């Protein structure tokens, strides 16, 4: 597995059996280009591919041109979003005394916070 986007050390436990070996269409190649800038910048390295983020933003016909800086911030905000969503979902799993985080744990987070109300029906 490609790890060129990694900046932090790998996780302690290796939970390979839950990882699906079949990832979607060659996303490794794209993840490798997520340096954002043409020069190799340690400060501007992102964990998610900027091009994909930009593509997602552009898929809304109303959305105009996005600057590189702005896409970079969206990328960082999304990384944070994944982090907080995961943590909040985990609290639900923990309350239910389960060892596997399930879809219903993620769904249970939505009604708790107003800012997640947009996710209802996802």
């Amino acid at each position: 597995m490609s790890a060129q986007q990694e900046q932090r050390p790998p996780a302690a436990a290796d939970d390979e059996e839950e990882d699906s070996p079949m990832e979607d269409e060659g996303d490794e190649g794209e993840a490798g280009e997520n340096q954002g800038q043409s020069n190799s910048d340690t400060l501007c390295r992102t964990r998610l591919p900027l091009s994909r983020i930009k593509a997602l933003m552009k898929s809304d016909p109303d959305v105009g041109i996005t600057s590189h800086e702005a896409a970079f911030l969206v990328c960082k905000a999304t990384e944070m979003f994944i982090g907080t969503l995961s943590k909040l979902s985990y609290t639900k799993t923990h309350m239910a005394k389960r060892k596997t985080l399930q879809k219903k744990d993620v769904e249970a987070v939505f009604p708790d916070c107003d800012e997640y109300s947009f996710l209802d029906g996802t």
Partner: protein
Amino acid sequence: MAEGGIPDDDISLPRTAVNKLIKEMLPNMRISNDARELVLNCCTEFIHLLAAESNEECGRQAKKTIGPEHILAALKGLGFDHYVPEVEDVLEDYKIQATQNKRKATKLEDLGIPEEELLRQQEELFAQARMQQLQMDQEEQARAVAAAAAAAQASTSAASGGMLADSAQHAGNGGAGMTAAQRQLAQFQAITAAAAGPQPPSST
């Protein structure tokens, strides 16, 4: 990796990247595949939401391009204020990096000429220098040949001129570092001078 075959509405972030982020947050947890799928879809929704809100903010400020300030305003507006400090820090880092990159680039750009053009000009200069060197070599050769021919002619017609030989010898030995062509030239000059009238041998 080509996204050409995928309709715009179906694009999402790469699963591997998202899974890695989840794993970093919850290193010791098992996570079901449908939970991962849901998180992935939530990310897509989040990005769409953020894009739409930023776009509106951009419109309110009568700007054409969505900039970082619009993203920050959108985060606040959507209830993600707690993201703002960290996102602002990251923006600062980005600006520092951008300044550093610009400084590196400006050295060459100061000339106002793109790199390819500079390379082309360099090649041209090399070619010109080569041509000039070639021409100089050819001219020197021609002079040497002329001098040798003249010297040969002069020596046959003035074979009795001891002075000539002396002059030529003096001229010939004038400089230790002279090339053969220069020596021949000097000899020719000496012969010409001698032919013009008796002169004291000139040392060169």
